[in-house]
């Protein structure tokens, strides 16, 4: 492997790591607050990509109803990101309202809530299939691939946008969770949910906020993903969702740093395994490595064994 293709792979790994990290965040945030594994989250990524598709094609003037003026592509790209994040956050919040909150109110066991999450994911996938059909959709090109070459290593603008977006999101969320009161409330809920309202804090508001954060980051990942790989299909969230979930667990689920480190770790393992072995071996070997890793450190990189409460 020469040095140029090594750096090429590193950049590629960072890009995939960024996708995994952005999705892993949603798993980790919801788990950190509710101790719930939101298995529908990968499909929220898919929903985000589709919403992004419709927003982008609308802004491009594809439909009978359209804007009376034309927007530059870069503006459309930014607007698509923002609008899609808002709308997808709405989907996440609705999911919490109709699927999880009623169960929480009734004090249902964790198994029932996890199964509900799995079913909600299947409903999103198959709802999409029923509504839009099995045919794939192509995401319109909003950012034209510009290839830069620095010292023999070439990379595209979209790849840089993806990596920078992931880093910005990381700093943003760390600040929220560490420094703000609502972030402290998120951490407090996972420790002792009953004591939180005694501090004058409306629990449901904090939970809704958590779903807004997780879903909008999945939407961001969704739009960026289809900007890089412009194919949409109803099951596109399933595999990447599982992988991001595994990344979150390997990083230490419940910890934002863990979601990022886990995401990047998975990105690196995948890309470098593929660089050495035939591509059909990629997932087998990557998951094998992660399995060994978890058996050595079952709490994940940043995870701590939950302290027994007295």
């Amino acid at each position, binding site marked *: 492997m020469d040095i140029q293709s090594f750096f090429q792979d590193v950049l590629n790994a960072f890009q995939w790591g960024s996708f995994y990290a952005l999705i892993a965040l949603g798993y980790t945030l919801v788990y950190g607050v509710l101790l719930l594994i939101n298995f529908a989250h990968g499909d929220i990524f898919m929903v985000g990509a589709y919403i992004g598709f419709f927003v982008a094609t609308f802004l491009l003037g594809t439909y009978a109803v359209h804007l009376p003026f034309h927007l530059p592509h870069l503006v459309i790209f930014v607007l698509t990101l923002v609008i899609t994040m808002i709308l997808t956050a709405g989907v996440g919040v609705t999911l919490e309202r109709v699927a999880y909150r009623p169960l929480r109110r009734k004090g249902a066991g964790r198994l029932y809530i996890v199964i509900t999450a799995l079913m909600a994911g299947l409903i999103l996938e198959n709802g999409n299939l029923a509504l839009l059909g099995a045919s794939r959709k192509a995401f319109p090109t909003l950012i034209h691939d510009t290839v830069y070459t620095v010292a023999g290593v070439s990379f595209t603008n979209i790849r840089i946008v993806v990596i920078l977006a992931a880093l910005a999101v990381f700093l943003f969320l760390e600040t929220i969770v560490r420094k703000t009161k609502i972030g*402290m409330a998120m951490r*407090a809920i996972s420790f002792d949910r009953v004591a939180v309202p005694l501090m004058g804090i*409306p629990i449901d508001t904090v939970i809704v906020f958590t779903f807004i954060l997780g879903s909008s980051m999945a939407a961001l990942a969704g739009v960026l993903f289809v900007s890089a790989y412009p194919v949409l299909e109803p099951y596109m969230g399933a595999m990447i969702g599982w992988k991001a979930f595994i990344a979150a667990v390997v990083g230490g689920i419940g910890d934002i740093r863990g979601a990022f480190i886990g995401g990047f770790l998975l990105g690196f393992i995948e890309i470098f395994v593929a660089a050495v072995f035939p591509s059909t071996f990629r997932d087998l070997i990557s998951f094998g490595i992660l399995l060994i890793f978890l058996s050595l450190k079952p709490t994940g990189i940043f995870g701590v064994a939950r302290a027994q409460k007295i």
Partner: protein
Amino acid sequence: MLKIENLHVSYGNIEALHGISLEVQEGEMVALLGANGAGKSTTLMSIMRLPPPEAPRVTSGSITCRGVDLLPVAPHLVVAKYGIGLVPEGRRVFGNLTVFENLKLATYARKDMEQVARDYERVFALFPRLADRKDQRVETLSGGEQQMLATGRAFMCGAKFILLDEPSMGLAPLLMQELFKVLKEVNRSGTTIFVVEQNANIALKYAHRAYLMEAGYIVREGAAKDMANKDEMKKAYLG
């Protein structure tokens, strides 16, 4: 300030309080005494309006604060709007946060930032140990320090009326006295206090009035001095 009338409360189908009535006036320090399982914590949780399954359900009767019906109020508003704070049984501080974060979290709903700043000063003056351990994770505090934090947290909520559930639990006698002295001092400066205790000795020493509970009923009430002298009280609850 707080008035409970003929309150019936159940966990599932099992009734835990069988029609209790009590009242706490503004500025008072009132104790609620009773043996294990008498229903003291149940009474406090009913006042805070915490939802089942952890907390009980009120089946009949009334709880009012300054004449306003508390029954339909959400728990966070009992704190934020009606200024009632609870120091719960077993402290329930957030072990994964620092001391300062625990205190700051309690100011979540407050807008009166100058008063918040004064309340921090007051809490750190009342409990200097908390100031020394400001950035320490709460899991690593001693039981006594956690009790101070739980009490300080209730002050930081801006509560003008504080309910405490067995604050003396697990404290050494000296620390117990110290804590009740602080409570008395806070009470003198205008905070109303309703304290649940199994340690009747210390509660009656500091409170104005007291209620005695047995198996979901209030069986006796009176001035603290009179209660301390009752023969059956002496036999059952005082050393």
